[in-house]
């Protein structure tokens, strides 16, 4: 699993530019029964005709940056692709789609007025320094519209924790790949006609799930996502949202979706039976791809497994491997026929 995670997290794939992640996934799961639609979603199927269609879904894209201007002095101005707190960006290293390295800089604190020191630095005031001395030099390496993403490797921390970029949602991709490879010859054991969707453009809200709904019209969908784990020292209990080490988080509601209660409860009871850890996620305003499944075409019943990830949408997001394993088990329990253990 660690190896899978490493391959997937290190792939370059900001929203709208997911092709390299797609290539890695296709390499992992093979090409049999795997279909790539014209927009770039990948859908794999473990077919059982006649059973209800259930989609397991993870998005391939990550948050990133797009070049909006190149100054006369060769600095690169950028906009955020996906949601950032600008506070996590300063002095981070980034890499472009063409492999150009840079660092995010802004006015040094020495030069700031007292007034400026009091205010936050916004993305508009930040630049990527790639070492170019002039606009001309910069233009040889970077064009307007190029993507950058975090340059950050996968590192094992203590206590079964792992740090990497893009765990939201390559963690979900890794779980789905592993579940697919495990179940692909076991269609007879499944309760559903099972589909695995690796989707595009989640982070900017123009989700590739829309195309999937239209083409396949799923009956059920379980989204596998990264979510905020705010289980830090001295956070009040009710503000922790999700906790690491407690298994996947199931939501009853978030900013965009009220999840199907009967379906969610069914999954919970299966996890209880097999003693698989899960938790109930606290409310946040963020939305997920589940919204697109629920309201796409003529609708679908939706549930979610959120992988608790600390410092999500930063270059150093942190996840506990045990949670990934619990999520994997929970998914298998959710889609298998009841009588088979």
């Amino acid at each position, binding site marked *: 699993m660690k190896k899978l995670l490493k391959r997937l997290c290190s792939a370059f794939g*900001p*929203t*709208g*530019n997911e092709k390299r992640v797609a290539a890695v996934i296709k390499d992992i799961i093979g090409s049999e029964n795997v279909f790539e*639609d*014209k*927009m770039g979603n990948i859908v794999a199927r473990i077919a059982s005709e006649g059973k209800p269609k259930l989609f397991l879904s993870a998005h391939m894209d990550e948050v990133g940056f*797009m*070049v*909006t*201007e190149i100054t006369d002095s060769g600095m690169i*101005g950028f*906009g*955020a*692709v*996906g949601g950032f707190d600008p506070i996590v960006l300063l002095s981070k290293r980034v890499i472009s789609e063409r492999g150009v390295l840079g660092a995010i800089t802004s006015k040094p604190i020495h030069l700031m007025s007292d007034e400026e020191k009091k205010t936050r630095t916004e993305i508009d005031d930040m630049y990527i320094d790639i070492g170019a001395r002039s606009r001309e030099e910069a233009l040889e390496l970077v064009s*307007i*519209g190029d993507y950058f993403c975090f340059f950050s490797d996968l590192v094992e921390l203590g206590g079964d924790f792992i740090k990497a970029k893009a765990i939201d949602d390559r963690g979900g991709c890794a779980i789905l790949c592993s579940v697919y490879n495990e179940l692909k010859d076991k269609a007879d054991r499944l309760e559903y006609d099972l589909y695995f969707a690796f989707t595009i*453009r989640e982070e*900017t809200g*123009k989700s*590739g799930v*829309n*195309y999937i709904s*239209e*083409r396949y019209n799923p009956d059920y969908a379980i989204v596998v996502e990264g979510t905020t784990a705010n289980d830090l020292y001295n956070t009040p209990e009710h503000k922790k949202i999700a906790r690491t080490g407690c298994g996947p988080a199931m939501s009853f509601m978030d900013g965009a979706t009220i999840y199907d209660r009967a379906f969610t409860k069914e999954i919970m009871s299966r996890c209880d039976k097999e003693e698989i850890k899960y938790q109930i996620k606290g409310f946040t305003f963020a939305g997920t791809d589940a919204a697109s499944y629920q309201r796409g075409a003529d609708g679908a019943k939706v549930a979610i497994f959120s992988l608790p990830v600390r410092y999500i949408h930063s270059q150093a997001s942190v996840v506990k491997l045990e949670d990934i394993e619990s999520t994997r088990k929970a998914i298998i329990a959710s889609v298998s026929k009841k009588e088979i253990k």
Partner: protein
Amino acid sequence: MKKIKELLKGLTDIVAVSGKEKDAHTEVLALCEGVFDETYTDKVGNLVMIKRSSKKNAPRLMLDAHLDEIGFCVTKILDGGFLKVSALGGINTRILPSSEVVICGKEKIRGVFSSVPPHLSRGKNEKGTPELKDLLVDTGYTKQELEKIVSIGDRVACRGELYELSNSYVVSKSLDNRSCACALIDMASRAERDKLEYDLYVVLSAHEETGNMLARVAAYDIKPDIAIITDVNFAREHGLKSKETIECEKGPSVDISSSTDRDISRRILEIASLCKLDCQTVVEVSSTGTNNERIMLSGEGVKTAVMSIPLKFMHSYSEIVNLKDIATLSDILLAFAYAPKEEL
């Protein structure tokens, strides 16, 4: 250039406030006589005009420009022959006092937005931005006469005929987005069926300005292989940041965004540079603010690119555009439609 100006004049003379586009379709079709093989108006008011390639089973290229313009609808007929109106689209209310309008009732009548003379306003209204609810449209008729001509819901449009300024600049109302409609019609009229690699679907779409963006419905029906959305974008003016704007007289722009298809965008830029046609780029990081975001999500998905014409004073009745930029957009699109479809 003269031909484009005449076509543009014809198009800007048409009144098509959001929701009332269908009435304008006859007038648009009269300007496109002989250009298209087939035309239809769909359920929600998009005008679809088709010109087919002589090749069998050619891929479908959808070219979209919204036909509607910002305007108002009548919400009340008041004593003394005044009308209350409500905005359809992003109206800048600063420009309204004392501006002229056309009311599209059973017949077209003229009106003027009320304004307060300086003698009376002194000391009050310091904010300087009047609100639409405080403004009236004065028609000169009596209430009884008005009720015979005007119904609740009727559309009201700003008046602003097209005039040519120097250096091929023109000023008019509704250059947003008749400029692009003009480029598309001009392009289709010049397109030779034998050279076309695509079947052209020119869509003049409805309800863009109200944010409903019904172009999505047209895309759902057509299922295009590629869609190019054309709209206007802010021209560089004093006070606007360079990275948010494009420059007049440098051709149309290709909007680079995480919501558009990178290969198609790149292909357009390549073709433009190959043909030595002016083309610029602008980055709209996550959304382009055009019909694109609705068209791309239509059906099983549509690969899209967005092209814009630089426009000054957007959403006023004195919008300004350069005819050369319209001509270049038309040229680039024609070159694109003649170039074989790559495996994208």
